[in-house]
């Protein structure tokens, strides 16, 4: 894996050129954010839920060895095999050894960020194993050779036409189709034979319940329940931070998760696995992969509370306008920007700058992670470690701010001499040219970006940050 810093801003600039994608992405995610708000307003107890969720997660993380032991003991008692993996490579070797032992070759898999984190497909496929993603969004990304763009909606950066093109190639459907129903049906039809013949089912999981040795999977499409239950071998991969103490605590998280993610009261399926099925075998692989290191970091350990709802991504003006692919990491958006550098500080050194520091992410987070504070702290850490030179740092900060239109733009243009419509693009392209990208400016402009910036930034930034912040 290359250590080169991810050119977040450059990728974002390319993204912005695809105007219809950019507009749809921005609006779709904002719509998810608004649906989340509607759900929040329906529950007077919303803040109590967040507080309880946060306290439960903090307690569990502070007592992680205890609860891991408890989970392991209970799961084993119920007949589940529990494995431990220090990193992705170890995880992949465990999966491979299980497949070898049982003489299996074809995995049907439901969505799980952690197997992407482990780069499991990349490991298994060249070794002769087939890995079929069965979640629609994840499958779209797999066919296109891309990482998931979003933790909840992996292919949110694509339009129907993109999916039609892709499915035409692999599923022999109409490349001109503009009907999402038709395309989703094509996936259903294509997935069935794979599901029926796959010899190993793999899932991730959202929660581990220490008290009962249960793992819980929250999904919508039904593919996880099929993938897990059809074959005789079920392997589930979860991070060690996924624990909660008691079954009675689960309600707090289930009530928050889908409401925060999609604005629906619950996922269509909330599945609890406590024992292997009759005649089947069940394995849980608990993965560390940097989590124990993160738990030792005073400023960043609480990012482990994350339940991967994606709300911070949906609300983030920079994420909405730059797209998940521009982060170059498995985890994108604000949460990605605080956990990716723990995997590789150099490679992901630019990501903590992809933020306006408006605090909206922190406000929507169902487990009350102080995301924007942690972004700020990362900037300090990375600056101290000289992971990025000063000039780039200042410019990257600007990228974050500029992507956060319309708030900043509206304010900034009030004092600028350029026309309203030209400012955003002008400013962005100037900025992005720092990465050597050549592109003609859309319109002649009177002012350089830097003079504009100098003139406008000081007293304007503060006000702009407020605008998108949830009250």
């Amino acid at each position: 894996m290359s250590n080169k810093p991810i050119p977040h801003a450059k990728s974002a600039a390319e993204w912005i050129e695809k105007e219809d994608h950019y507009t749809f992405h921005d609006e779709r995610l904002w719509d998810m954010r608004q649906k989340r708000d509607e759900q929040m307003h329906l529950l007077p107890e919303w803040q109590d839920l967040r507080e309880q969720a946060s306290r439960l997660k903090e307690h569990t993380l502070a007592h992680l060895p205890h609860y891991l032991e408890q989970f392991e003991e209970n799961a084993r008692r119920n007949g589940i095999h529990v494995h431990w993996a220090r990193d992705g490579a170890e995880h992949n070797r465990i999966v491979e050894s299980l497949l070898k032992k049982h003489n299996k070759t074809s995995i049907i898999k439901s969505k799980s960020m952690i197997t992407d984190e482990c780069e499991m497909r990349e490991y298994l496929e060249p070794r002769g194993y087939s890995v079929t993603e069965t979640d629609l969004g994840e499958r779209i990304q797999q066919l296109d050779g891309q990482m998931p763009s979003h933790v909840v909606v992996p292919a949110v950066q694509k339009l129907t036409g993109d999916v039609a093109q892709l499915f035409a190639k692999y599923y022999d459907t109409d490349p001109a189709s503009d009907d999402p129903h038709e395309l989703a049906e094509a996936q259903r039809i294509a997935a069935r034979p794979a599901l029926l013949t796959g010899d190993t089912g793999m899932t991730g999981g959202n929660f581990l319940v220490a008290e009962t040795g249960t793992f819980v999977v929250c999904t919508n499409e039904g593919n996880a329940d099929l993938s897990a239950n059809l074959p005789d071998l079920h392997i589930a991969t979860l991070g060690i931070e996924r624990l909660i103490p008691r079954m009675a605590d689960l309600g707090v998280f289930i009530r928050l998760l889908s409401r925060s993610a999609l604005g629906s009261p619950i996922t269509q399926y909330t599945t609890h696995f406590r024992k292997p099925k009759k005649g089947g075998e069940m394995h849980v692989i608990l993965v560390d992969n940097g989590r124990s290191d993160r738990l030792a970091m005073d400023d960043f350990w609480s990012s482990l509370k994350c339940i991967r709802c994606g709300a911070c991504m949906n609300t983030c003006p920079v994420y909405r306008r730059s797209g998940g692919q521009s982060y170059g990491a498995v985890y994108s958006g604000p949460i990605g920007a605080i956990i990716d550098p723990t995997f590789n500080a150099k490679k992901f050194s630019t990501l903590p700058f992809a933020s306006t520091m408006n605090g909206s992410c922190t406000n929507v987070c169902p487990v009350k992670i102080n995301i924007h504070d942690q972004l700020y702290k990362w900037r300090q850490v990375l600056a101290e470690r000289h992971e990025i030179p000063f000039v780039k740092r200042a410019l990257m900060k600007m990228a974050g701010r500029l992507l956060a239109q319309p708030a900043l733009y509206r304010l900034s243009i009030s004092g600028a001499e350029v026309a309203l419509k030209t400012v955003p693009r002008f400013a962005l392209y100037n900025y992005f040219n720092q990465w050597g990208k050549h592109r003609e400016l859309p319109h002649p402009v009177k002012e350089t970006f830097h003079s504009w910036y100098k003139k406008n930034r000081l007293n304007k930034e503060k006000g702009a940050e407020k605008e998108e912040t949830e009250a």
Partner: protein
Amino acid sequence: MSDGMNMTARDAIFAKLREHKSPQEDAYPLPPVAVFGDCDASPERFAKNLAQMGGKLLPRKPGESIAHVIDAAFPARQNLCTAVPEVEGTLRIEDLEDHYQANKVDVMVVRAAFGIAEVGGIFLSEVELKEHLADVHLAQHLVVLLSQAELTGNMHTAYRDRSEFKTAGYGVVMSGPSATADIQGVLIRGAQGVRSLSVIWD
């Protein structure tokens, strides 16, 4: 596991967690179990939320048989597979020979252990499914019998009060049918699992 390599991984992870953990145990006590919000367990609340999640409540006239209600709702169905004694169907779930046969089922009838009013959800485990865990999800349509006496108010009361969460090997709360919004945000009911989920009070 007896696997030597794995034992090392486990020990290494625990050693790290015990030595370097930042949050201190005393600073983060376990909060008591919380039950928040509306605990109304009425059939009306259940029905409203079932509809929101894309599920249907099949109307049933007094004295009308369940089989009749199903026939009225699915006039074109061929294979009707049943996991309940109340409905005869064309085949019993216990008699399904393999998943390919289940894949041809048009309508599956099961009885839920309980329902959750807050989310219009129904609970199924290996007990209700007679160990045919995948087959219920292979069917095209699902019909669920549910007793109004077996409703719980919300997710807190469900996890606190329903013992099934601690006894079932496989337990799924289904709130409406399978769904996806992965293509350009368009909500599609009937993704890869059942295309529809209907509840009959019984």
